[in-house]
């Protein structure tokens, strides 16, 4: 494996974006295909990384280090472990699919759209690969601006409200995380006789956290700041209110990336940074976070049940599904953590596909009100079948990938506390309820008057649309039957995170010094 592969994966989209900037405005097709080519190239490189990755090898691989701001020990440091590899490949896959899915719907300012999308990819991939906290923060914020533009420029009628809400929520969390990052780096520097070297290096910080450990006060404060940033991103109840607005207003591809990748940044942040660096604080806060996860699970499902808008329903189902992720992470069990990671991947695939499918019907009817549609199955059989497939995957049908992640989390939570597992299982019934009911209202029964009016515009799936969904469907089946493919990759990550936590003890909140 040649060096620099990670830099290549991170910055090929940027090169694509720069090229697009110089293309003539009158030729939107050039911009479209350049963007697709850049995204596909990135995808190929990420697959190359996946093939070269050695799951049995502990620690980070393909590590690249260069001094960036030596005065503060800040480095340009990239590296990948199993978790990074899985999420990077998920990102690169969903990105080219989203770009392809934008060919039809995006007709205005195509150049700017494609540039935003590619820069978004730079940020997302960078977040998953950065091993320097400062660098991580920079990529984290880089994600924000293109998404702000994508929702704000190409979104629905209420897009400005939605996009500003999205940015403000995210910024509050991330700016406080910046304070925590700087405080952590300084604590490391202070403990090393004022030497800044390595103060933001994740591996050194983790080693420090695993031996000496950060002071209790710092851990409690910094974990809280990290938690806020990640909880808003995931989003956890009660920080989720930006999500339905953002999803409803975002263009289809924006929703796919939002649900597929952006929400995972939060889960990734917990597993990669918050737990290893502040294990004691994580143990301290875990019960609260588990309760919040359970609320998110049930609340998200119940609210999804009553949504009149199809996209909002899928958005709330994300809140519920991501509850499994945080639950799986914070029960500190092997199965739970495996399940959480798997759930992140599966949710990315399944919900991404569901948003694409919502986009298909919206393209034709310019409406997403569930009540206005019925009897779609007669008019668009292929669409109905595809929708049914992903809907069942989302319900958690055994054999499809959605099942395995949730099942593992449930097994883990049963070991943690049967009551928790009981409540979480209850959610799965709700999930089946709102998804099946939604499906029934959309596809069965008489063709509604509204759909009659649309008439011949209501066509079945176009080849491009099918093309975007086939890879996702394939992966859903493959991961459903062989979840070991993913689990095998992240074994090293799970072991190291749980080892770190094993030595930790909860901080007594009343008597810490």
């Amino acid at each position, binding site marked *: 494996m040649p060096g620099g592969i990670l830099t290549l994966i991170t910055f090929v989209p940027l090169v694509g974006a720069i090229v697009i900037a110089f293309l003539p405005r009158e030729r939107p097709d050039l911009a479209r295909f350049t963007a697709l080519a850049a995204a596909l190239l990135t995808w190929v490189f990420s697959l190359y990384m996946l093939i070269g990755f050695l799951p049995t090898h502990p620690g980070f691989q393909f590590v690249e280090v260069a001094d*960036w*701001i*030596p*005065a*503060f020990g800040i480095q340009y440091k990239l590296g990948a472990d199993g978790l990074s590899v899985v999420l990077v490949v998920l990102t690169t896959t969903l990105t080219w699919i989203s770009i392809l899915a934008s060919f039809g719907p995006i007709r205005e300012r195509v150049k700017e759209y494609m540039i935003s999308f590619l820069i978004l990819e730079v940020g997302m991939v960078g977040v998953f690969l950065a091993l320097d906290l*400062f660098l991580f*923060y*920079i990529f984290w*914020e*880089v994600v*924000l*601006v293109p998404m*702000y*533009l994508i929702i*704000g*420029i190409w979104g629905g009628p209420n*897009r*400005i409200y939605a*996009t*500003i809400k999205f*940015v*403000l929520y995210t*910024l*509050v969390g991330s*700016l*406080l995380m*910046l*304070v925590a990052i*700087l*405080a952590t*780096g*300084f604590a490391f520097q202070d403990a090393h006789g004022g030497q800044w070297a390595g103060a933001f290096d994740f591996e050194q910080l983790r080693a420090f956290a695993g031996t000496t450990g950060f002071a209790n006060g710092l851990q409690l*404060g910094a974990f809280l700041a990290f938690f806020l940033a990640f909880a808003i991103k995931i989003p956890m109840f009660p920080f989720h209110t930006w999500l339905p607005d953002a999803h409803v207003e975002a263009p289809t591809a924006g929703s796919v990336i939002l649900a597929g990748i952006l929400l995972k940044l939060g889960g990734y942040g917990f597993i990669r940074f918050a737990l290893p660096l502040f294990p004691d604080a994580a143990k301290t806060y875990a019960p609260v976070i588990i309760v919040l996860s359970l609320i998110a699970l049930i609340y998200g499902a119940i609210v999804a049940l009553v949504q009149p808008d199809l996209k909002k329903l899928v958005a709330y189902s994300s809140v519920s599904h991501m509850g499994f992720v945080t639950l799986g992470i914070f029960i500190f069990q092997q199965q739970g953590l495996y399940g959480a990671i798997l759930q992140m991947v599966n949710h990315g695939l399944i919900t991404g596909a569901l948003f694409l499918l919502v986009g298909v019907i919206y393209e034709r009817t310019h409406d997403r009100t569930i009540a206005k549609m019925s009897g779609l199955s007669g008019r668009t059989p292929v669409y109905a079948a595809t929708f049914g497939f992903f809907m069942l995957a989302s319900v958690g049908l055994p054999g499809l990938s959605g099942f395995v992640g949730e099942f593992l989390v449930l097994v883990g939570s049963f070991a943690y506390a049967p009551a928790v597992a009981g409540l979480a299982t209850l959610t799965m019934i709700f999930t089946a309820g709102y998804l099946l009911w939604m499906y029934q209202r959309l596809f069965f029964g008489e063709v509604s008057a509204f759909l009659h009016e649309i008439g011949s515009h209501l066509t079945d799936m176009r080849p491009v649309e099918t093309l975007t969904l086939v890879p996702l469907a394939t992966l859903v089946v493959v991961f459903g039957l062989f979840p070991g493919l993913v689990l095998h990759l992240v074994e090293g990550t799970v072991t190291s995170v749980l080892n770190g936590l094993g030595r930790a003890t909860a901080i007594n909140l009343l008597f810490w010094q």
Partner: protein
Amino acid sequence: MSGQDLLTISPLIAAILVAVAVLIVDLVAPGRREPALATALLGLGIVAILTAVAGRTPGQAFGGSYTVDALTTFLDLLFISIVALTIAFAPDYLEPRDLPIAEFAAVLIFALTGAMLIAASTDLLVLFLALELMVLPGYLLAAYAKRDSLSTEGAIKYFLLGSFSSAIFLFGLAYVWGLTGSTRVADVAAELGKIASGGAALSPGLALGLAFMTTGVAFKIAAVPFHYWTPDAYQGSPTPVTGYLSVGPKVGAFALILRLFVGALGSLRGDWLDVVIVLAALTMTLGNLVALTQNNVKRMLAYSSIAHTGYMLVGLAAYAGGRQEGLQGLLYYGAAYTFMNLGAFAVVAALQRRPGVTSSLDTFAGLGRREPLLGILMTLFLLSLTGIPPTAGFFGKAYVILAAVQAGGPLTILAVIAMLNAAAAAFYYLRVVVYMFMREPATEAESQRHGNLVWAGLWTTSVLTILLGLIPAPLLSVVSDAARALGS
């Protein structure tokens, strides 16, 4: 006075000569802007080179009242860039309004000499003279559109409050002089050092003097609650002047703070720590809250500049809390703020090229479609002002926050307040982006042509805004040298 003294202050003399030369060129070739502009910009280039050369031999002149060290050089070069950029941005705005350009450049360069003198003075009296030399041309500039009633109103407010605060400052200075027996910064510092080490008590007179001086300086940097002159002066002034006023005199006043509060009163920093913390928290919070409600971009940027004063004060507070890094952060932030804010004002000025165009938010509607490049550059400046990486503004914020976190204690809370403020500020900065890219204009405005100088200035500020965020290391070493020159 010796020959060596003259050599040491040669950049200052050169700057005065350049200002005079600009006026003479304008006399010889009246009504033509090119010769005057060329003289001004070339002259400033020479001043910059002289500054860099003089900065290589640190030393003092005139018996210790004038000091050349790394801090002087850094600040001087910053002031020179501020003035040069303002001169580059101004003609496109002034010419259509029949405002003379050569005088504008000359007055600015006179102000520059004042700012450069502040950066170098280590004597309280010289410091005061330098301050006046810097702000007096500022009053002139604020009233530059003399037929515009708003401009005159703003200038009068600026002048009255400015003179008032100068008087307060001078009053405090008199106390300090009387009670320490010297106006030399080094002597005052030694005298106060005795008090700090417990050898003597802080007399009520001295405390009063310090309080008056703090108040005077707080006016100059427009810290809350001494900021009331800012919005009117900023909104009324011709836009390029506003850009200059929001940066030049502010950085100048911070230079004064560094020379005075750090150089002379540094040993008492524990005593003014609380005051700076409160000032910083109030300044950024109030500046941001009021900026949130503005519909005029110029006025919004005026309030936001108050908020930025607050962030810079966080750096000063971190210094008072015992961290040298606070000064470095303050200086870095000053440089970052200079370029991003000048850039933002330059875009506003470019939009207002045609007389009669207001700086209201509506003017920005559809700019992203009408003039995409201008829209993108403005977005960059606004993102930097918000503090989004990888821009200069982000690194400046990270730096002062790092210093505050290092100082710990109440400063950690101040850091959190600063970050919450930054998040709130995102709302009004991004609102401009919303207008530029996400709204259609109510009336179709035509796109305008902008002069080469404006583009050159915009490219300079935008490239620096990105570079200072992406490759901060070179400037980091400069500011740490500059901060070290002040002693710890």
